[in-house]
C-alpha cells in the first residue's frame, strides 16, 4: 500500500536533483543558511527581543550602544542599538522579513508577467513576438536598476513621501516586478521556441485543443526548469534592487525598515564610529544574497536548461 505522499517522497529521494544536492557541500550549506534566515524572518515577532515598530519600547538613552564584546555594550542588546535606541538584532530580524517579502513578491509578479509575455511571444511569433521582445530589449538596455529608480522617483514625487512610505512594500514589489520582467520573458520565450517544434505540440493541435490550453497546459510545464533557475537568481537581484532603492530613499521608510533602509540610516553614523548600525545589516544582506546566488548556480548546473544567452 503506497499513499500519495510516500510515493511523492520516494520520487524526490530517487531524483537526480536530490542525488546531486546530497553530494554538493556548498549547496547544502547555502540551503541550511537560507532556511535558517527565512525561518527566523518568518518567526521574527517570536524571536526578536523587542518590537522595533513599537515606539513606546524605544528609549533614546540606549542609542548607539555597541555590540556585545566591545566596551560600553549592554547585555540586553546583543548586536548593539541604532541611533534611535532600537535593538539591532530585532531590527535586522524584522528587516530581513521585509526584504524577503519584497524579494519573493517581486519575483512572483515578474514571473507572472514574464511567463505570460514570454509564452505569448514565443508561441504566437510574428508581430506579437517582435513588439514584446523589442520592448524587453529596450527595457533591458536601460538596465533594470535605472528603470526601477526612475519609476520609484516618479511614484515618490506623485504620491508624496508620507503616502509613499505607507504603501512602500506594494510599491517596491510593483516597481521591481515591472522593471525585471524581461529577464524571465526572454528565458521563457527561448524555451517555448524550442518546445513548440516538438511532436507533442503538433499532436495537441491535431486533437483540436485551444491555443490557451496548449500554451499553459502543454508547453508551460516543459519550460519550468529554466524558470526555476532564473527565478532563484532573480530573488537575489530583487533583494539587491530593493536595498538599493531603499538606500537612495526611494524605498522602505525608516519606521518600517528593510535591510536597505537600515544600511541607509546607519550610514549617517559611520563617521562617528558606530559601524555596527550600517555594517551588520549589510553583512546579513550580503550573506542572504550570496546563499541565494550559490543555490542558483547549483540549480543551473544540475538542471542545465537552455538559458537565454544575451
Amino acid at each position: 500500500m503506497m499513499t500519495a505522499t510516500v510515493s511523492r517522497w520516494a520520487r524526490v529521494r530517487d531524483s537526480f536533483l536530490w542525488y546531486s544536492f546530497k553530494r554538493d557541500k556548498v549547496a547544502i550549506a547555502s540551503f541550511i543558511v537560507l532556511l535558517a534566515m527565512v525561518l527566523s524572518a518568518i518567526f521574527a515577532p517570536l524571536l526578536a527581543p523587542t518590537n522595533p515598530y513599537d515606539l513606546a519600547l524605544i528609549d533614546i538613552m540606549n542609542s548607539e550602544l555597541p555590540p556585545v564584546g566591545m566596551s560600553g555594550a549592554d547585555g540586553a542588546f546583543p548586536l548593539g542599538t541604532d541611533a534611535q535606541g532600537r535593538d539591532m538584532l530585532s531590527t535586522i530580524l524584522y528587516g530581513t522579513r521585509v526584504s524577503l517579502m519584497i524579494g519573493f513578491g517581486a519575483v512572483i509578479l515578474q514571473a507572472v508577467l514574464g511567463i505570460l509575455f514570454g509564452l505569448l511571444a514565443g508561441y504566437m511569433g510574428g508581430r506579437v513576438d517582435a513588439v514584446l521582445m523589442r520592448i524587453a530589449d529596450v527595457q533591458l538596455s536601460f538596465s533594470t536598476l535605472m528603470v526601477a529608480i526612475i519609476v520609484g522617483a516618479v511614484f515618490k514625487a506623485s504620491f508624496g513621501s508620507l503616502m509613499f512610505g505607507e504603501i512602500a512594500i506594494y510599491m517596491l514589489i510593483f516597481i521591481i516586478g515591472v522593471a525585471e520582467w524581461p529577464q524571465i520573458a526572454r528565458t521563457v520565450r527561448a524555451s517555448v521556441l524550442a518546445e513548440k517544434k516538438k511532436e507533442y505540440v503538433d499532436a495537441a493541435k491535431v486533437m483540436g485543443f485551444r491555443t490557451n490550453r496548449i500554451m499553459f497546459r502543454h508547453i508551460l510545464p516543459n519550460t519550468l526548469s529554466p524558470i526555476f533557475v532564473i527565478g532563484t537568481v532573480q530573488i537575489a537581484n530583487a533583494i539587491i534592487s530593493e536595498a538599493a532603492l531603499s538606500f537612495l530613499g526611494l524605498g522602505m521608510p525608516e519606521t518600517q525598515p528593510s535591510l536597505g533602509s537600515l544600511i541607509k540610516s546607519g550610514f549617517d553614523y559611520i563617521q562617528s564610529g558606530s559601524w555596527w548600525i550600517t555594517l551588520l545589516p549589510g553583512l546579513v544582506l550580503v550573506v542572504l544574497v550570496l546563499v541565494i546566488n550559490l543555490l542558483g548556480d547549483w540549480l543551473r548546473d544540475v538542471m542545465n536548461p537552455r538559458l537565454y544567452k544575451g
Partner: protein
Amino acid sequence: MLAFLVQRISQAFLVMFVISMIAFAIQDGLGDPLQELVGMSVSLEERDAIREDMGLNDPIYVQYARFAGNALQGDLGISYFYGKPTLQVIAEHLPATLELVIGASLIILVFSVPIGVYAAIRPQAFLSKFFMGISTVGISIPVFLTAIMLIQLFSIGVTIEMFPTDTGWGAWLNGALSTDGGLPSYGRGDELTHLFGTWNSGFFSSDGLWHLVLPCVSLASIMLPLFIRLIRAEMMEVLQSDYIRYARAKGLSSGRINFLHALKNTMLPVITVGGVQLGIMVAYTILTETVFQWPGMGLMFLEAITRSDIPLIVAYLMVVGLVFVITNTIVDLIYGLVNPTVKLTGKKA
C-alpha cells in the same frame, strides 16, 4: 547593410520618441507650473489668464509638440532650484560623473582581461577558482555596501585590538589587520583643473586623484566580476573551436595561440557587451555618488527628486535616455560591421 543601418537608427528615434512621451507625461502629471510661478494672492481670473497665456489649456498633443520642439532646440526648461536652464545644470554635473566612469572603466580593463584569460586557460588552477569565487561574492555585494566598507576600511580606519599585545605575534596581527584610513571619502577635493567649458578635472592633481580612488574602486567592483566571467566564458568557448585545435596541431606555442589567435576573437563580444554595460554603469553612478557625495549627475538627480525639481528630473531622463540610445545604437552598428555572422536585417534566428 543599408537596411540594417536604417532599421537601427529608426528604432533609436522611436525609442527616443517614447522616452520623450514618458518625460512629457511626468512633467504634465506632476505638479502645476502655475503654483511655482505665482503666489497665493493671485486671483482665479488672473490664474486662468496666465494659464491660457502659457498654453496650459491647449490640447495635449499641442502641448507635447511644443515640449518636443523645445527639447530639439536644446530647451528643457528652467530648474526650479538652480534657477538656470536644466541642460546647463546637467552640463555642470556631467564631467564629475564622466571622470568617475572613466576611472572605473580603466580599473575594469586593467584587471578583467588578465584574470579572465588566466581563468579560461587554467580553469582548474587554484588561483582561477579563487578569482571565480571572489567574483561570485563580488556580485552578491551591492555597490553601496562596497562603498561603505571601503570608507570604513580606508577612510575612517579600523583598529583591531583582539589579540594579546604582550606577545610579538599578537601585536603584529593587530597591526596587520588594522588600517590607517585617511583616504578622502567626500566630494572631489578642492584642486580641480579647469579644462574647457564646464569641465573641471580631478585627473591633474594628486588631491583630485586621491578623491577619485574610493568612488572609482566602488563603481568598478560591481562590473569587474561580470567582465571577468564574460571574458572567461567567451575565451573558453573560443579555445574549443576548430581553428585553435588546428593551431595546436600545427605546433604553435601556447602563448601565441592564447594571446594572438584566441584573445582576438574573445574581445569582440566582450567589447560589444561591455559597451552596453558601460551604459548601465550610469545607473550605478547614482548609488556611488550618493555614498561619496560626489557632485555628479546621479547625486543631482536624487536631489532633484527630494526637491521635486520636476524640470530637472525630466531633463535628466531625456539626457540619460539619449546616452543609452546612442551607446546601444553604436554598439549594435559596430557589432553588425565587424561580425559578418550577424543577420543584418535584424531578424532573430
